[in-house]
C-alpha cells in the first residue's frame, strides 16, 4: 500500500474512533445532568405513581449501558429516537432544520471564504502599509463585537431604515432560491463578519511564513510581479494551514449559529436545540450533539486530508 493511502486510511479510522468516543461522552453527559424529564412533562403537581409510570414508559429506568447501545445502533441506522416532550420522530423533525442550517452555513461560506483569502492575499501584497492595516483593523473590530449586537445593528439600519432586506429570516420549502437568499442576506452578512478575521489573518500569516523561503527570492529574481509571486509560488505552499482554519470556521458556521438563528428567528437546528434543552428533552439534545460532533470531526478530517494531499512529498514519493 502506498504511504499516502495508508496515512489517509489512518486518518479516517481515527475520525471514526473519535466520533464513537464523543457519542459515549454525549450519552454519559446527558445522563448525569440534573433534572427529571417526567417531572417537567407532568408538572409539579404530579403524583409519585404517575411519575413512576411515565419513567418506566420512557425507558429511563433501564441500565445506562443497555440504553447507550440501543441508542447507538439506532443512530447508526438513522433512528434518533422520539422526542420525549412532543412524541415526534427526531430524525424527521431535525432533517428539514438541519438542511436549513447547512443552507445558511453554505451561503455564508461561499461569501466568507473567498473574501477572507482574497483579503489575506491583499494584506500580504501591501504588508505593513495602509491596506494591510485597514483590513486588519476592520476585521478585528468585527470579530470583537458580539455577533447578536452586529445582528441587531444591521437589522436596524439595513432592514428597518433602508428596507433592503427583511429583518426576519423566515424560509420555507415553497420559496425559490432567490427569495430564500434574499431572506437570509442579513444572517449571511453577520456570519461573514464573525468568521472573516480569523481566516484572513491565518491566510496572511501562512503566506508571510512561506514568503521567507528561498524559492520566493528565486521567483522575484525571475522578474515576476508581486501577485504572481504570491499566487503561484507562495499560495500553493500555504494551502494546508489555510484549509485548516477554513474548515474550523466552516464547522463554526454549522455548529455555532445558534445565536444568529435565534436573533433572526431562522428555522435551523440551533433554535430547535435551544428549545429542547430548556424542556430537558434528552434524546433531542443527544441527537443534536451527535450531529454537531459529526460535522466538526468530518470537516477537520477533510482539512487533514487536504493537508496530506497538498504535500508533494507524499503525493509523489521518490
Amino acid at each position, binding site marked *: 500500500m502506498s504511504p499516502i493511502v495508508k496515512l489517509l486510511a489512518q486518518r479516517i479510522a481515527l475520525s471514526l474512533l473519535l466520533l464513537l468516543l464523543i457519542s459515549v461522552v454525549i450519552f454519559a453527559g446527558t445522563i448525569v445532568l440534573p433534572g427529571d424529564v417526567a417531572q417537567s412533562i407532568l408538572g409539579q403537581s404530579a403524583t409519585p405513581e404517575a411519575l413512576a409510570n411515565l419513567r418506566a414508559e420512557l425507558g429511563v429506568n433501564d441500565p445506562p449501558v443497555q440504553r447507550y447501545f440501543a441508542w447507538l445502533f439506532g443512530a447508526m441506522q438513522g433512528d434518533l429516537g422520539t422526542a420525549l416532550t412532543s412524541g415526534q420522530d427526531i430524525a424527521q423533525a431535525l432533517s428539514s432544520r438541519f438542511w436549513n442550517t447547512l443552507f445558511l452555513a453554505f451561503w455564508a461560506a461561499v461569501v466568507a471564504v473567498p473574501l477572507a483569502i482574497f483579503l489575506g492575499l491583499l494584506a500580504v501584497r501591501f504588508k505593513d502599509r495602509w491596506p494591510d492595516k485597514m483590513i486588519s483593523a476592520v476585521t478585528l473590530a468585527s470579530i470583537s463585537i458580539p455577533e447578536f449586537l452586529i445582528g441587531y445593528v444591521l437589522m436596524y439600519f439595513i432592514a428597518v431604515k433602508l428596507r433592503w432586506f427583511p429583518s426576519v429570516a423566515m424560509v420555507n420549502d415553497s420559496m425559490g432560491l432567490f427569495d430564500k437568499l434574499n431572506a437570509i442576506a442579513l444572517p449571511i452578512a453577520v456570519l461573514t463578519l464573525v468568521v472573516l478575521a480569523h481566516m484572513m489573518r491565518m491566510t496572511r500569516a501562512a503566506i508571510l511564513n512561506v514568503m521567507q*523561503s*528561498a*524559492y520566493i*527570492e*528565486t*521567483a*522575484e*529574481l*525571475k*522578474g*515576476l*510581479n508581486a501577485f*504572481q509571486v504570491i499566487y*503561484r*509560488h507562495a499560495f*500553493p*505552499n500555504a494551502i494546508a494551514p489555510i484549509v485548516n482554519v477554513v474548515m474550523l470556521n466552516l464547522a463554526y458556521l454549522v455548529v455555532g449559529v445558534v445565536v444568529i438563528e435565534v436573533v433572526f428567528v431562522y428555522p435551523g437546528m440551533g433554535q430547535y436545540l435551544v428549545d429542547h434543552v430548556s424542556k430537558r428533552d434528552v434524546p433531542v439534545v443527544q441527537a443534536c450533539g451527535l450531529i454537531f460532533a459529526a460535522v466538526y470531526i468530518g470537516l477537520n478530517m477533510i482539512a487533514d486530508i487536504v493537508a496530506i494531499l*497538498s504535500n*508533494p*512529498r507524499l503525493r*509523489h514519493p*521518490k
Partner: protein
Amino acid sequence: MSDTLLKVRDLKIGATIYPPGERPRDIEIVHGVSFDLAPGKVLGLIGESGAGKSTIGLASMAYGRGGVKITGGEVWVNGRNILKGGHKDIRKLRGAEVTYVSQSAAASFNPAKKIMDQVVEAAVEQKKFSRKDAEARARVLFAKLGLPDPDNIGERYPHQVSGGQLQRCMTALALCPEPDLVVFDEPTTALDVTTQIDVLMAIKEAIRDTGVAALYITHDLAVVAQVSDDIMVLRMGNTVEYGNVDQIINNPQEEYTKALVSVRSIEHEEKAPTEEPVLSVRNITARYKGTQFDVLHNVNVDLYPGQTLAVVGESGSGKSTLARVITGLLPPREGEIEFAGRTLSPDLKGRTREDLRELQMIYQMADVAMNPRQTVGTIIGRPLEFYFGMRGSEKKKRIIELLDEIELGEKFMDRYPAELSGGQKQRVCIARSLAAKPKMIICDEVTSALDPLVADGILKLLLDLQKIEDVAYLFITHDLATVRAISDNIAVMYQGKVQRYGGKSKVLSPPFDDYTDLLLSSVPEMKLGWLEEVIAHRKMESAGN
C-alpha cells in the same frame, strides 16, 4: 551595444541592523566597489563571509536581500543604468537579461511545482520563448548539463532528484531564457567534493557553449580559479585586489590575498600509535529506528590517547551516525564501544557521570549549541559545577584559565554569544568541553561553517590544546585539507563502511582504492587548469577500462 556588458561604478550598499537592546541603525556594508565585465567573460568575486560578495552579485539585478538597500553608485547593464529604472524596467531585466543561481538549489526550488514549470517560467513570462520552445530548450540544457533522462526529468518534483542534480537544474533554470549574464552565488558550496567537480565542469562547459557572461561568487579560491577570467578579492565591503586569474593566483600583491592563496599552513607530524587505545570501536552495526537498512556496517576503528583520528566521508557516509553511536544517542544493533579500558553502555541512559565527563563533544553550529541567554562565563562554568562541584572564586579562576587557553581572555566572561564572531563562539564551545577535563572530544565538522582563515586558527588552537591537555580527538569532517592538517590516523568512510583505515601517511599515499582515489582527486587545487586535467585524466581512465 557597448563592449561592456556589466559596468559597476562606486557601488555603495547599506543595511539597517537591529542590535539587541539598541536602536536600529543604518550601516554601510559595501563601500564603493567598481568593476567591468565584458560579454562572455567570467568574473570571480571572492571573500569571506561578510565581504559583501553576494550583496554585490544581487545588486547587479537591482535586488537587495532582506533590509539591504543600494545607497549609491551606478550599475550599468547593456548600456542602461538599472538603478535609475522603475519597478517595470527592473522586472524586465530580471529573469531575462540577468539570472541567478543560488547556493542551495534545494531551498530555491518551489517544492510544490514540477521542475520544468519552474525552469521555463522566466523565459515564458518574459516572452523570450513560447512555452513549447522553452521546454525544448530546457531539455537541451538538461542534456548539456549531464542530467540523467533529460527528456523526462522536468516532470519530476524537486524532492525526487538529488542535490547535485537539482543544482544543475538550477543552472538550466538560469540559462533557459538566454540571458546575457548569470550570477552564480556559491553554486557548488553545499555539494560533496565528488559531486562538486561534475557540477563545476557542467557549469563551465555551459558558460563556454552559450557564450553567456557570469559573476561567480565563492569563498573558495581554488574553485574560482578553475572557472574565472578575472578575480576580484573582497574584504568587509572593500576591494582588496582586482586582476586576471593568473596574476591573482600566481602573483598576488596584497597580504590578504597571499594569505588566502596559502591557507592551510599547518604542519602536523603523524604520531605513532601507543599501546592502549583510549577508544575502541568494535564491529559496530547500526540502523535508525523504523528503517530497514543499516547505516553502519561492521565498523572498527581505534583512537589513541593524545592523538587525532579523522573520520572523513561525504554526506550519507555514516560518519555522523558513528558519533551518535559512540556518544550513546543511537544504541548499535551489534558491536561494542570500549573507552578508557571499560565497555560503555550502548545507551546514553546507562552511562555514568564519569563516562559523560571523559567523552565530550563539539558541534558544527556553535551558535545553536549555546544558550543565547547565558553569558560566556556561565556557559563555561556549568561543566565545572556539574562535574567538579566548583563554586565561587575557585570556579571563576578556572573559567579565566580556560578563557586564556582559548586565546580570548577574562574580558569575554560577561559577554553573550550574540556578541561573538563565529570563530569566537566555536572557541567558547571548545573551552566548555575542555572544562570537563575529558580524555576524548568528538569534533563534528567544527570548522565547516567557518571562513578558511578563521578555521585555520581553530585547528591550530585544537592542536596546541592537544599538547597541553593530552586529549584525544575524533575529528569528523568532509574536508580533506583539514584531515591532512591535523590527523594522526584516518578512517575513510563510504556508504556506512570503513573504506580505508590507518596512519595518515599510509592512507594518503598510493596505491589507492577506487573511492579514496576519486575523493582525493576531487579536491580542488589552487592551480589553473586543474579541472580540465582531472576531467581529461578520468576520461582517459574510463576509456582505458
